[in-house]
């Protein structure tokens, strides 16, 4: 009874943190001064903007919204005039709302940043870990009691609220970053300690992402403490996120080297061949050449070889950052993936479509890089350039699909929406897994009882049961090899294997399930 009370209390801490987090963008004081303006705004834009914003110098805004409006109005009115007079080179594309707000922040949010940091980041870690420990400390087996009785994990009202908050967060992060400024202020000291520079919204996002993977990773470690496979792959995911995705790029940036996530692979890392990234690598001497070579080696050699031996799981559920979030924070939602045949049909067109889009976009970008010619198609006054392609890709796939849908839809469509329907690297890995890999999930003779636990808890929406009950191996391009199907199977039917395989039996269907000797009868 006492433990139950502590557990609710722990959950309460997390809720308090979420409430503070949601309120923060609407509060705080921002004092716009000429000094702030001079510091932040590029010298070439001083003349353009200063007269437009001059009236607001010295003004203190309550909440960031007024300041953002002031900045955006000034920029917009300048741009409208410039465009009207065809002074194209004077149009301002820089987003000053975030940087000015960041520099203009004063008052209680800045003064109380350590307290707020504790409330927003400390409380959920303490409360979350306490809740997790009390919930899973002595698990010996599958912990899925009540999954479909709880609103949060079965698309109830709470799930709806969480989904809306997540989606709103991603929309703000990608398209209205100025509103993240109060959150960013809280992590400034950490960014300054690591890399010496102030935090951006991406540093904030990276910190939160890593923190969530670490805390929810502990949940996975405890929930599946009886399974060496889940313990190992969860530990790997936590390690790669913390070191490769978070710390190493920050250290590289501090050393004035290209800040690269060394485990991110093209085409998931879709900007790898963009001019500014190629230039950065080529300008960074030996280390830059290493980065370029490593990036090429990853998708040309490491991906096919590793996938041949282990299947795509070596990346998707042992290494990848998106996979890391899905396998930890997303685990409570895995049962929400759509298992219908129609979903599989949509998935195949969509994910391979994104792969084709990514390849074409990259080829176009490289064409422009080498030839200097940006325009690709020009028909009757309508033209498409490689810059158009890459900004469409960045908007539609990089931000909207991977971020807003990919994570925001966890509570509605499960934790692998992006990986399943949108990730071009998953599509590439999947093609190798389907046609040139040893990896498969075997089904143990005739022991399947068609219960449906495997299909229900498959985050990729694979109808695992449909294979198991026919005694057929599961060889599917989408399978990320998380191994949960094998864990939840109550009859020990499913096993992830990569031993040598004679090829023919990989996807063979037998006329009858094993166990019935009638199949030995000669007809």
């Amino acid at each position, binding site marked *: 009874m006492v433990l139950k009370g502590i557990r609710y209390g722990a959950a309460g801490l997390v809720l308090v943190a979420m409430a503070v987090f949601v309120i923060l963008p609407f509060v705080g004081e921002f004092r716009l001064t000429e000094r702030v303006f001079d510091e932040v705004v590029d010298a070439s834009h001083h003349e353009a903007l200063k007269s437009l914003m001059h009236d607001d110098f010295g003004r203190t805004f309550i909440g960031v919204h007024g300041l953002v409006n002031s900045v955006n109005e000034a920029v917009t009115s300048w741009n409208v005039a410039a465009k009207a007079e065809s002074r194209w080179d004077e149009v301002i594309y820089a987003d000053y709302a975030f940087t000015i707000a960041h520099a203009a922040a004063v008052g209680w949010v800045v003064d109380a940043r350590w307290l707020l940091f504790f409330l927003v980041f400390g409380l959920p870690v303490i409360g979350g870990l306490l809740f997790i420990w009390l919930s899973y400390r002595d698990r010996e087996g599958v912990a899925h009691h009540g999954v*479909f009785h709880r609103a949060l994990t079965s698309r109830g009202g709470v799930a709806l609220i969480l989904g809306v908050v997540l989606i709103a967060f991603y929309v703000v992060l990608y398209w209205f970053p100025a509103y993240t400024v109060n959150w960013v202020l809280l992590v400034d000291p950490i960014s300054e300690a690591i890399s010496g520079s102030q935090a951006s919204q991406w540093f904030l996002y990276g910190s939160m992402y890593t923190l969530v993977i670490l805390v929810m990773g502990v949940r996975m470690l405890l929930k599946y403490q009886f399974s060496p496979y889940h313990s190992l792959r969860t530990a790997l995911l936590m390690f790669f996120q913390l070191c490769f995705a978070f710390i190493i790029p920050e250290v590289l940036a501090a050393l004035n080297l290209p800040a690269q996530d060394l485990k991110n692979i093209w085409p998931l890392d879709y900007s790898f061949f963009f001019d500014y990234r190629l230039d950065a690598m080529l300008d960074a001497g030996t280390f830059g050449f290493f980065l370029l070579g490593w990036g090429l080696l990853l998708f040309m050699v490491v991906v096919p070889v590793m996938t041949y031996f282990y299947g795509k799981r070596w990346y998707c559920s042992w290494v990848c950052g998106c996979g890391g979030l899905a396998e930890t924070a997303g685990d409570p939602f895995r049962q929400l993936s759509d298992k219908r045949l129609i979903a599989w049909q949509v998935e195949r067109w969509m994910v391979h479509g994104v792969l084709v889009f990514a390849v074409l976009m990259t080829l176009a970008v490289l064409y422009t890089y080498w030839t200097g010619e940006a325009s690709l198609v020009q028909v009757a006054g309508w033209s498409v350039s490689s810059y158009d392609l890459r900004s469409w890709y960045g908007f539609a796939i990089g931000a909207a699909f991977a971020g807003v849908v990919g994570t925001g839809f966890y509570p509605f469509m499960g934790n692998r929406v992006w990986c399943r329907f949108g990730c071009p690297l998953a599509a590439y890995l999947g093609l190798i897994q389907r046609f040139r890999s040893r990896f498969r999930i075997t089904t143990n003779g*005739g*022991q399947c*009882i068609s*219960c449906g*636990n495997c299909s229900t808890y498959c985050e990729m929406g694979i109808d695992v049961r449909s294979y198991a009950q026919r005694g057929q191996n599961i060889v599917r391009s989408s399978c990320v090899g998380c191994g949960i199907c094998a864990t939840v199977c109550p009859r*020990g039917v499913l096993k992830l294997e990569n031993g040598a395989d004679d090829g023919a039996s990989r996807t063979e269907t037998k006329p009858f*399930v094993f166990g019935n000797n*009638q199949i030995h009868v000669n007809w």
Partner: protein
Amino acid sequence: MHTVIIGNGIAGITCARHLRKNSDEFITVISGETDHFFSRTALMYIFMGHMRYEHTKPYEDWFWSKNRIALKRAWVSAVDTEKRVLQFNDSAQLAYDRLVIATGSRSRTVILDGVNLSGVHTLYSLQDVERLDESTKAVLSSAQGARKAVVVGGGLIGIELCEMFRSRGLEVSMLVREPSFWGNVLSLEEGRLVEVHIRSHGVEVLTETELVSIEGEAGHVSRVRLSSGAEIECSIVALAIGVEPNVNWLQNSGIELGRGVLVDRMFRTNAQDVYAIGDCAEFRDPPSGVAAINQVWYTGRMMGETLSQILIGKDVEYAPGPWFNSAKFFDLEYQTYGQVATVPKPDEQHFFWRDLEGRRSIKVVFDAQQSIFLGINVIGFRVRHELIAAYLEKEATSQEVLKRFER
């Protein structure tokens, strides 16, 4: 040709699917329980909230019309084998050319005081689970009455019920007639190992204890009286004392019944073109190594497979491979292959090993003279069905088998 199958469980549906693969005839499957085939073995997971009913359906709803298998939701009240007509309880009728009876089992009950009180349950059908759910919710939301369930029967359904009630936070006592858990299948050592595990999940296991009577207040269960003389305050009693073929509805049909529908090895009943498979079938003369009545998922499936071949004219008899079965006791997985008696028969020897933590055990049965491998029980291991079946069929030695378990 119109083949009508009564019962949409694993036996009837397997038969229908394989028949459709190999023939073009009309196929109708009738069920009074549900519109569609679902996995009965998954009922406990619905109750525990691991899945919803729709997750337990192995095929999407469009599958049946796409494969031209007509589904009819109705209870059959009578069969006229002369006119080849089924009578439904709403007075509709359906003509058949061939009839397959695959009506499964029903829970066995006992005649004793209080068995009709509200709060007394069995577990077989989807409706049973719905009733269990309502009853449990009522107990949990009521201020009165013990938050306790008594499970009668120390077997597979009994332990499922224990896990179900524990998952909702009820206290549970399990009454086991035998000296140890599942005593007619597991040895004393294996049963004890499982009992320790069950207890670790908060279940009180009372061995060599039977139910004497159920007492109620205002029509609802309030306590049970045990053979030991003890009484337990409880609000739910779940009877898990086995199942019996669901054939009472055939009493006056002229189809010959024993405990189940009597069939030969080709599943033919005494009536022309009427067959029976699955839990409800009883072999007049079972194939060697096969029991007269077989009531597990796998036998239902294999009978369905075999009958589908017979119905398309193949000359085959029921010939399952070596016996196999599996279960899960809370977190402990169990598999069995071959013939494994609880205690060694006169010409047998049993090798038993268990770990100190009580999470794993192996029991290997072999022939005392020639050391031929006859069967195996494993708890906490997953072993390969194909491998063990091959050992059994080629009469491997026990040494050969045990070598596989060496680290």
